């Protein structure tokens, strides 16, 4: 598809390269852009209302995928080195009963953390994080300022990340 998006990609190639480099791609920055280009060519995308932010988001997601797969690989190699040995369990296997209990416990903890933040903060966090609603829209819905929504989100995120840290060190 040699239509709009590819043209916008070419016109903004330098800026995207700079972004991907700053985003941590280093020497691989050119390869990442090449990946992006191939994906754009392969996909038959309809018209996109805001093409440049779309391309940036795509680049950002590619970088996240790279980070995710590299940290997963590191973890796997580490497990292997620590003598996990034998046949590795398929991670897609059904969740075991005791794991499910742990998961339920975590849900309860998360529920308590959110509840302690108060109903507005909890509502803002849910609208944003679960339902994917933008901050400006949430501010309008609740009749509060954008700054209030930003602060609520920071507060909720900090509390939820602290809970995650606690869970991870348990």
């Amino acid at each position, binding site marked *: 598809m040699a239509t709009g998006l590819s043209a916008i990609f070419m016109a903004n190639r330098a800026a995207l390269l700079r972004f991907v480099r700053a985003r*941590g791609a280093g020497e691989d920055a050119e390869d990442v852009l090449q990946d992006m280009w191939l994906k754009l060519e392969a996909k038959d995308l309809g018209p996109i209302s805001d093409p440049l*932010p779309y391309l940036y988001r795509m680049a950002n997601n590619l970088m*996240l995928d790279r*980070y995710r797969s590299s940290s997963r690989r590191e973890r796997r190699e580490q497990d292997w080195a620590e003598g996990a040995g034998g046949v590795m369990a398929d991670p897609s296997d059904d969740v075991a009963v005791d794991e499910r209990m742990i998961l339920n416990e*975590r849900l309860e903890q998360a*529920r308590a953390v*959110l509840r302690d933040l108060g109903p*507005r903060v*909890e509502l803002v966090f849910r609208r944003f994080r679960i339902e994917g609603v933008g901050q400006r829209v949430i501010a309008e819905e609740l009749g509060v300022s954008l700054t209030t929504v930003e602060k609520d989100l920071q507060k909720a995120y900090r509390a939820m990340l602290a809970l995650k840290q606690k869970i991870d060190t348990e």
Partner: protein
Amino acid sequence: MNEEALGWVIRTRDPAFNDWEAFTLWLEADPGHAAAYDGLMMADSDMDSYIPVDPVVMPVAANDAGVRGPWRWVGGGAVAAALVATVSIAVLNRSDIYSVTTRPGETRTIALDDGTKVELNGGTTMRFDRKDARFAALDAGEAAFTVQHDAANPFRVTVGDDMFEDAGTVFNIVHAGGATRIGVSEGKVIYNPQAEAIALPAGRALADDAQGLRVMDIAPGAVASWRQGRLVYANAAVADISQDIGRSLGVTLTATPGAQAMRFTGTIRLDRDPARFFAQAAPLMGLTAVRQGDGWVLKEGPHKEGPHKEGHGPQS
């Protein structure tokens, strides 16, 4: 924790974010920024495994909050626990469609495969599809829906000839006596997406009855309040309220034409003991409840010594 990186995680997660140049500048300012951002984005996506998806409602208007304390109900579950719901499962024309019926006064919760929860109030008949968790039909009665939203495959509720489609939602529908009422407490519902396509965001309600189709405001906390053993109203007709009471408590309740036309704003606490319930609820609505045979009748005016005094002024 890196506050700046967290700020960028939140900003870039916003669907409307477009200041990628500013983000690039921040990343370039320090090579450690990208790593901090990646770490927090990972932590963010890990949250998916333990964020509870159950609904949250904003507190109801201040006057109701004051009432809630002293009026605390023994717990919404009491209604369900006190009675064992008899559920008749009838196989209809298609083998994968099944129906669920609750008797007046019974409640029942249906968990669908996709994680959607449907809570049936008393006197309700619904149909579901074993093969399609996104289908539900409310044939009669009242139900509260807590929907697992999926934009690609929306949850749809058929009510008579009408259809409600969710857009990330908690809502309640009443279908009785040829009228339909829906209240939305979270997310959004689309009424008849193929026809009128009326969007109902949280805090909006729609009524379709003899007076026609109307859209109005509703306190999100008032939606499906029967689940907490309360009925919350703003300027509601006693005709509708008496239906709600009959369904929730399993009593036969009628209202005189004069009483039916009256309107009520406030919170009514449900009570399984009808005599105790009406002794409290009727005066609250400015009405009198009289036992008649197996049922109850709501009449206009405050309760006096005897029925012969009805209709007289407050001085009589």
